[in-house]
């Protein structure tokens, strides 16, 4: 049983590692599209078409990934329920069809877009001007944070709060979402720093630094999430195996210190 769970986990990890590579190719394409246009046209219009393509492809990718994760998650949940271990305390029902899951997560993604939009306006994006650019950033951020997480978390507000507000993701997937999402938002925040500089570079146009920052930190977040998940898994495995009372104590101590 444990072996099966570990297999599932490794599959999830490998898919998670996939994301950055895919994203890389896409944004590279985007960059290549950007460069010639920028040289010959006015700065602000250039990154838009390529970014929209990135968004569409990212949407598709995240959907596929999310669905895979959802199926894995539900199967592992089913496993755990079958097994009767304590882990099956999730609210989501595993019997729902793919389409209902897709519907909910798209809805959540839309809400996420709205939230991201509001916050980027609060952080100083134009209230009336440049709505298209801000919208693209919002879509991008939502695709990196809310949308993938929604496949697993669903409409369960409590677990959303638990993970993202109380900083205590419970399972490995949650930890991965947490790290990725937080890092992506942090990256977008960090990216905005270069905007006011007077270097007049094409990549300083409004949403580009934030998008790039979010992307880069999303990648870092993926790696961090991976590490965290591995650590968590090892700890859990140790606890589950029950190697000795001493190790169990150290494990609980570590938990406390977290």
């Amino acid at each position, binding site marked *: 049983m444990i072996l099966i769970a570990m297999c599932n986990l490794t599959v999830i990890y490998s898919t998670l590692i996939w994301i950055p590579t895919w994203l890389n190719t896409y944004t590279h394409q985007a960059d290549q599209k950007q460069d010639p246009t920028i040289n010959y046209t006015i700065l602000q219009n250039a990154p838009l078409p390529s970014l929209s393509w990135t968004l569409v492809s990212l949407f598709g990718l995240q959907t596929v990934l999310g669905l895979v994760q959802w199926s894995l998650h539900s199967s592992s949940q089913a496993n755990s329920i079958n097994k009767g271990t304590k882990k099956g305390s999730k609210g989501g029902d595993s019997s729902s069809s793919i389409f209902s899951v897709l519907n909910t997560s798209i809805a959540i993604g839309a809400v996420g877009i709205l939230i991201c939009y509001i*916050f980027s*306006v*609060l*952080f*100083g994006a134009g*209230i009336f001007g440049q709505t298209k650019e801000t919208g693209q950033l919002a879509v991008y951020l939502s695709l990196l944070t809310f949308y993938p997480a929604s496949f697993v978390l669903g409409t369960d507000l409590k677990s959303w*709060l638990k993970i993202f*507000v*109380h900083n205590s993701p419970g399972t490995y997937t949650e930890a991965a979402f947490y790290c990725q999402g937080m890092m992506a938002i942090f990256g977008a*925040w960090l990216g*905005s720093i270069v905007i*006011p*500089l*007077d270097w007049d570079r094409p990549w300083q146009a409004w949403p580009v630094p934030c998008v790039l920052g979010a992307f880069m930190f999303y990648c870092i977040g993926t790696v961090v999430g991976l590490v965290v998940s591995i650590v968590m898994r090892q700890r859990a495995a140790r606890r589950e195996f029950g190697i000795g009372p001493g190790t169990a104590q150290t494990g609980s101590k570590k938990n406390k210190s977290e």
Partner: protein
Amino acid sequence: MAHRTPPLGQAQAQTSATPSPATLRSRTSATTTQRTTSTSTTRPNGARGPVSASQKTATKERTPSIRLAKLLLWVFLVHVGAIYLFTRGFLLSRSVLDSKSECDNTNMDESIFTDDRLAVSKCWYPQQYKKAVVIVIDALRFDFVVPHHDLPDYEREPYYLNKLPVIHRLLEEQSDNTLVYQFVADPPTTTLQRLKALTTGTLPTIIDAGSNFASSALKEDNWLAQFESLRGQDRILFMGDDTWTGLFPSVLNTNNSHAFPSLDTHDLDTLDNGVIKALGPALEDPSKWDLLIAHFLGVDHCGHTYGPNDPHMAVKLEQMNDQLEKVLKSVSDDTLVLIMGDHGMNGHGDHGGDSDDEVEAGMVIYSKRKFLDASVLDQFSLGDMLRYTKPVGGNVYRTVQQIDLVPSLSLLLGLPIPFNNLGSVIPELFLSAKDPKSAIRDLLRATRLNAAQVATYFESYIELHPTSDIAMAVEMEFGELFTRAETFMRELGQDPRAKTEDLAKALKLYSEYLRTSLSSCKRIWAHFDVPLMAAGGGILLASCVCLLLHITIYRTVGMPPSLERFLAGGTLLGIALARHLKPLLLTIETVQESSLGLVDIMIFSMSTFSIAGFLMCLVLNAKSFAKKESWNVFRMIRWPPLSGFLACLFIFVNCLIFASNSYIVHESTFIIGFLQTFGVIGLLFSLRVPDKAARIKAVILVLSFMAMTRVLSASTVCREEQGDLCSPTFYASAQQSVPSQWSLVMLVASGAITPYLIRLLLSGSKSMTGIALLWVDYGLRIGIILGTLYAVLDFEGSKTDGTRAATTGNNANAFEPLLGGMSAGGKYLWIKTTLVRIAFGFALLIGPAAWWANPLCMDIQTVDEPVITADGNRKSAGSSSTAPATQRKIIILGYANAFGASYYMTLTMMFLFVILTQKPLGAIVLSVGLAQISCLVELVDIWRDADFAVWQQGVIARIQAETQESVENTDGIAAAASIQAAAQAEQAKAPTLNLLLPTVVLSLMGNLFFFATGHQATLSSIQWPSAFIGVPTVNYLFSPILVIVNTLGPFILCAMALPLVVLWKMPPKANKLGMLVLFPELTRLCLMMMMHQSLVLVANMFFTGGMFRRHLMVWKVFAPRFMLQASTLLMMDLVLVTVTVLVVLSRVIREVSTVLSIRVV
């Protein structure tokens, strides 16, 4: 312990509750007894040790606030000293004298030249040339001009060399008619500064402290204005860079100039092509002008874009060559042609600094008349009047100062030399006569006029500033040179046949005077005094370190016991040792060059030694600290909590802003990043609040905080560097400085809402009693209404004033004459003035007086309620008085917010004062700002409660666990004792919410409000009209105060709101020792705010004075920001020391503590 009688103010007396004083007294006495017993029985444990120590020394109730004020005062004084030192080194100010030189007044006895052949002089010096053509090629470096023949073969010829063959040809073919100079500019080598120097002959300083900051027009005397006044405006023709028209708006207007925007042009050719287009016809018809100025910008743009060594530069210079050829071909005999660069460029094509390549421009003077060779001067051993360059391209050229052009050109064109000029005439230009002897005579005449003008300038400067460094230098260094020369000249007497040798000697004396005076002025005005700057910055940094140490070490103690003594001792030691410090300092080589006065040394040594005293105190106390709480050291080092970390991060990033001019320019949009980050973190905090009602409230508060931040940041005036990225919203339009109509409508609305909101806020904690009833409902409301009325009248008045001429015929509006009469100078002006004066009276006299008499927002209610349901419905006052078995109960209304509400009253008074000085939109902004401050303090309170609740749960859980263990082990009594002990031990470690983050946020909010109230970190954004609010004519006491409050009012509000972070809804509940520990936290917060602002200033000083003092933008961006930051820091310090701590805080705390009989430490 004598403060027994509770002073019951009028509000309490009004409530006709006769038994209340007695009961109150009994209650207070009960608490006192409890306190005395507790102090006698409980031994202070480790953590409280220092408190009890200070308690021993403290004899009076009010001591803590006085001590705090002393500490803050010391910090303030150190800041003043540091800023003074730095400013003296950095902001070298030169007063602009508005006097103009006049034609018929040379202050000279010219009789010696009366029978000269040039005697017919209408003005100072006989006119030599009727016309002049001035061609300015921006960034024309010296080596662009002169020929380079002997380039090594292996080296490819750089693109910028030998591209002006027309000049080379002139040098070869018409060498007698051509003079080529190396033209040395003074840094900063930026076009605007250079044009100023080239027309006025002055040296640049950071601030030209003239009569008018606001406009960019040049007010000093200059040859362009002189030319206009003598020959008329239509004789001038200008084409090129619009910097000129900005400088001389009255001389160069659309009739006679073709100006092209310089900053918005990004290509190389637009401007030049425009100039060329205008230049052609002008040269064809020289009768239209006497003075032709053409300013080409392409070379400079090319340098900035591509660098000097680029094919574009060759193209550009060849184009210039063609134009010069055209010009030189067309000039007539009585025309003087000047071709010059205003500055050079460095290897990257940029300029602004003081490197050789940047200051060395080229100048070519050409005339159809022949100049005498300068070697004639050598005959009379006057050769040292001339300076030569190092060989450039194989030849040696003459080098002159850029400002030397000013007197030369003025005299040659028959104009008086501009009043402020410091340059000296270029000798060759006056050696036009055939005969060497009369040539010398001409030169002497010109030089003498020049020297006399310079001497007159110094005279009037000293008259205005008798104590300035210039006055001292004139007295000590060069004043006598002029007198000597004049005496010599007088001795030569009337004799027109004076020997040439004597004339040469006089010439030598005059030119020596001119040279010495210039170099003295350069030393005083154009050199940053690095040692002084370093001293100022260092002291400020050291004080920041002190504050940081204080904040981190004295967490639980406000101040170590005898800190003041150390500080005072250090200061006295500093005074005593100041004299001995000077020789010590002078041993350092760099210090010797600085103009270090005794006052500077005194300040330096005082601050240094008092800082040393502070550190000494720290070290001495550290011993006792280490003994008592050795664990504290480790706790200090551990990773700070998230909020503390964020506070540090904010400060750090805020400091880094000054590393780039872009961030300073866009600071108004950048600042909201901090506040919104705080908002997001705050949102996370708030979502973690355990109690549901509080959580919802907190989330709403945070979201409204963020929304308000965003709304406020939308109100802005733009500075020109922001360009398209900013659209001004503060005024009705970008070109006007009148508020828009809708802002007045909103002002009326916000004026109506604000008192209501304050009421709502205060009644949340039942504090809407006592003084608050009177002030918020009447005083504040009336004040706001009057202020609004004033703003409306002002707006309508200014509108009618503008359109009166148009509408005099049909007087449709009956109010119009009345409103028109209320504008400046009208007969109904007094109405407006009186209105706003009454409002000021409310804010500054009536309100504070009433508050001082009775500062508390507390009230006492007696309630008869049944004994049985004692704690059922306490608040339903007197509802059940009919019940037979009742008990008289006393409810203190506003108890929960006893400190906060009372303090808040004074904040609203200050708020009223500040908004009265603001423009309408500024007043709205500050109303929103007050709401934001209220949000912040409410939030802090909710978080504090939540923190406490979480901690309490933890403690309870732990104690329960421990008791279970102990119950298992021992019997009940011992367990109970151990619980008590554990509870006490935990009590000592009660969590204090980290308030450093709110403090930093509050201090950043000051910046936000500053930008939102229509200010920018530029001198031109100061709202001068506020000087006349309530003061019809300028008044040298009130007008500056009004302008200062208008500008720094946002910071004043934020500094004043600081104690609210601690005091808001802090129940005045004493602990077991009968004390309420407030001052450690208050001290930390005040110091934190000071540290934030002063660290920002240190960063500012470091980048502005240390790294970018020759930066291109130092005058435009860095220096104004530095001035803003310095005045902000001083203002915040001052407000914290005086208003916040000394007046308000001490009064509030003393009053609350006497009434409720608690001891606040």
